């Protein structure tokens, strides 16, 4: 009955053990009590004895492997077996020469020396110096290298008799605990290998996949090339609002976005919900941020004026264009003012540039585009009022309701400030009511 050798649990909270060295080789005869291998845990290094007598077979894990507790790493059988034909390549330790890039120097055979764990919470060590050079003879008790941990610098012995066949890290390299850093061969190597950690690729692991060029002490440190992501602003779409205000808004079906559109600074508090409640009309009627100002003024003033100067002034629409331009100018617009006069029922449009700066009698349409304001003349229609989506420019609709003109200005916040819109509509309404004011 073959006896399975498993990775023992040596500590209270140990879930894997690092095989430091095998004391028996594949096929060796072992007696119960013989030291089979050494295991390093985070606390200590221990020798593990054979629990059965026989022959050590099917050694599946090598020195330097970190093996989960409970995993079978060998079998003690009744007779010596040849090395198992399928030594499960997938479990083949990465540093096995087969895995090495063809361009890399062939890794010499021999005992592997790993970066030891010298402290309780050490996960890597820095090689301070090698005391042997590739090709040197080394006795087990010879100091092979010095390693620096966060606590101290320690000299480490070779642990094996033989020759330094490979040094896989350079002074200054930081090497994870358990990584193979040297190979000591039984016979003098013909082509000893010397590598730096950097030359073994950025993964800095045992997989020596990068072609090993000559050691390049000045090569760039294998710092992770990851660029720190710029810390995204956490706000995003989040609305800053007090817990109570958020709860009340939820309970009362209030959309806090209304406060943002109204320009109320965040964070919102319960008091701001009062403001939100007073703005329901906008969310009820306003398609996508369109705002609206309405005015109503008797037609008498303008019709009297128009009748009095009949013949001396052009169409009513041209006069209104002048009114609108003048009102917009007094509402704060400084540039040349282009007014487009739309008469939807006739399907006609006309442009006026600064119509308020010429005498009424000389107002005339001209070539222009990009109006600052659109006048929509609906006075000939039966439509008495409407709110449409704002155009490229604010749209002032003039319609007629009985004996009144109805002025309706559609605009967005981006086009006009609320104050300017109010002054614009008030200016046009005042001029329509008493056109002589415009002349003054």
């Amino acid at each position, binding site marked *: 009955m073959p006896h399975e050798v498993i990775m023992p649990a040596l500590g209270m909270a140990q879930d894997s053990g690092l095989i430091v060295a095998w004391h028996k080789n594949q096929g060796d005869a072992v007696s119960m009590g013989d030291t089979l291998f050494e295991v390093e845990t985070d606390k200590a290094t221990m020798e593990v004895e054979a629990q059965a007598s026989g022959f050590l077979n099917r050694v599946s894990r090598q020195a330097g492997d970190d093996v989960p507790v409970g995993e079978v790493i060998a079998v003690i059988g009744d007779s010596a077996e040849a090395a198992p034909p399928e030594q499960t390549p997938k479990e083949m330790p990465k540093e096995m020469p087969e895995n090495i890039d063809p361009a890399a120097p062939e890794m010499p055979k021999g005992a592997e020396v790993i970066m030891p764990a010298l402290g309780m919470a050490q996960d890597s060590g820095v090689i301070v110096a090698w005391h042997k050079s590739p090709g040197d003879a080394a006795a087990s008790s010879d100091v092979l290298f010095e390693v620096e941990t966060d606590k101290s610098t320690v000299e480490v012995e070779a642990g094996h008799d033989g020759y330094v066949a490979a040094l896989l890290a350079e002074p200054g390299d930081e090497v994870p605990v358990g990584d193979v850093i040297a190979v000591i061969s039984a016979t003098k190597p013909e082509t000893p290998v010397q590598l730096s950690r950097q030359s073994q690729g950025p993964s800095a692991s045992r997989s020596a996949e990068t072609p090993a060029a000559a050691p390049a002490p000045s090569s760039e440190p294998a710092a992770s090339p990851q660029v720190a992501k710029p810390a995204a602003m956490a706000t995003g779409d989040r609305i800053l609002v*007090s*817990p*109570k*205000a958020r709860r009340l808004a939820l309970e009362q079906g209030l959309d806090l976005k209304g406060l943002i559109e109204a320009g109320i600074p965040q*964070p919102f*508090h*319960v008091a701001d919900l009062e403001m939100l409640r007073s703005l329901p009309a906008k969310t009820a009627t306003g398609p996508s941020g369109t705002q609206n100002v309405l005015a109503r003024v008797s037609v008498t003033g303008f019709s009297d004026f128009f009748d009095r100067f009949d013949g001396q002034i052009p169409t009513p629409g041209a006069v209104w264009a002048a009114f609108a331009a003048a009102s917009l100018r007094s509402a704060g617009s400084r540039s040349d003012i282009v007014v487009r006069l739309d008469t939807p029922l006739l399907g006609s449009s006309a442009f006026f540039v600064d119509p308020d700066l010429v005498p009424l009698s000389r107002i005339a349409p001209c070539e222009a585009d990009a109006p600052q304001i659109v006048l929509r003349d609906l006075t000939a229609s039966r439509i008495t009022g409407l709110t449409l989506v704002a155009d490229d420019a604010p749209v002032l609709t003039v319609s007629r309701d009985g004996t009144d003109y109805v002025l309706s200005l559609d605009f967005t916040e981006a086009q006009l400030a609320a104050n300017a819109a109010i002054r614009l509509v008030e200016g046009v309404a005042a001029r329509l009511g008493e056109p002589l004011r415009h002349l003054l």
Partner: protein
Amino acid sequence: MREITLSQAVNEALAEEMRRDETVFIIGEDVAEAGTPFKVLSGLVEEFGTQRVIDTPISEPGFMGLAVGAAMTGTRPVVDLMFGDFLFLVMDQLCNQAAKIHYMSGGKLNVPLVVRTNLGATRRSAAQHSQSLHALVAHIPGLKVALPSSAYEAKGLMKTAIRDNNPVVIFEDKLMYNDKAPVPEEEYLIPLGEANVLREGSDITLIGTSSMVQVCQKAAGLLAHERISAEVIDPRTIVPLDEAALLKSAKKTSRVIVVDEGHQSFGITGEIASRINEKAFYHLDGPVLRMGAMDVPVPFSPALEDLTVPTPEGVAEKARKLVAGEMIHAA
């Protein structure tokens, strides 16, 4: 109603309880002839004798340990710890022994012990005699902590504490010993764990303890001039804490400032603020603010010392900002 000082109120409470129950005794430094440095116990040794008003050598761990043992064996000691700062000397007796004996004996032993001590800065007593260390005691399960804010509270809480079968530490504000307040002639008790609403309000709740109750009261007065209606609550005991009363007020006003004379960091203010945050979060219209003593050794320099503790003006200023929604922090 007659008005007496906080000293007289404590003296009366002790005398009444010692007359009522002969197992009650007082032990501490300078408690008998001297009647304590603050003269709180004057006259008691004349009435009850040196067997019940016991002067000790200057060894706080000694007499505290003695009192814990005495309490376990059937008496009701009232330990006089001259300054709250000396709590550091009796931590083992108080926190490892008195606080845990009832639990560890499976309920077979009680420690009906009262520790009378004090807190409060601005008495020019320097860093080792000016600390407010009630948070240290409140942290240990098994110890009750009372913080009387007036003569009335001092008497009612002291009498209740003496009758309690568990260790109770009472911190008196050493600046308040001569403050007078109406105290009834007839006997009364104040239960532990029952907060007192001193002033009703609707805009903000000021929770004050001990010396900070009058600071909150004055702050509420300042705020009233600005039409900010502040509610002032005194928890009276922080262990047990009348959480329900504090939460009720927090939900009502939706804004809270907690004011306490202990150091602000890791203190009473943070504990109370957290509980309100945890249990009234969706009723809050702004962050619960803490105001404690500055995290520095209490300076000896009067000018500096006065800067380290919350003032009515400081509390009112914070309240103003909280009500105006100006306690804004980055998203």
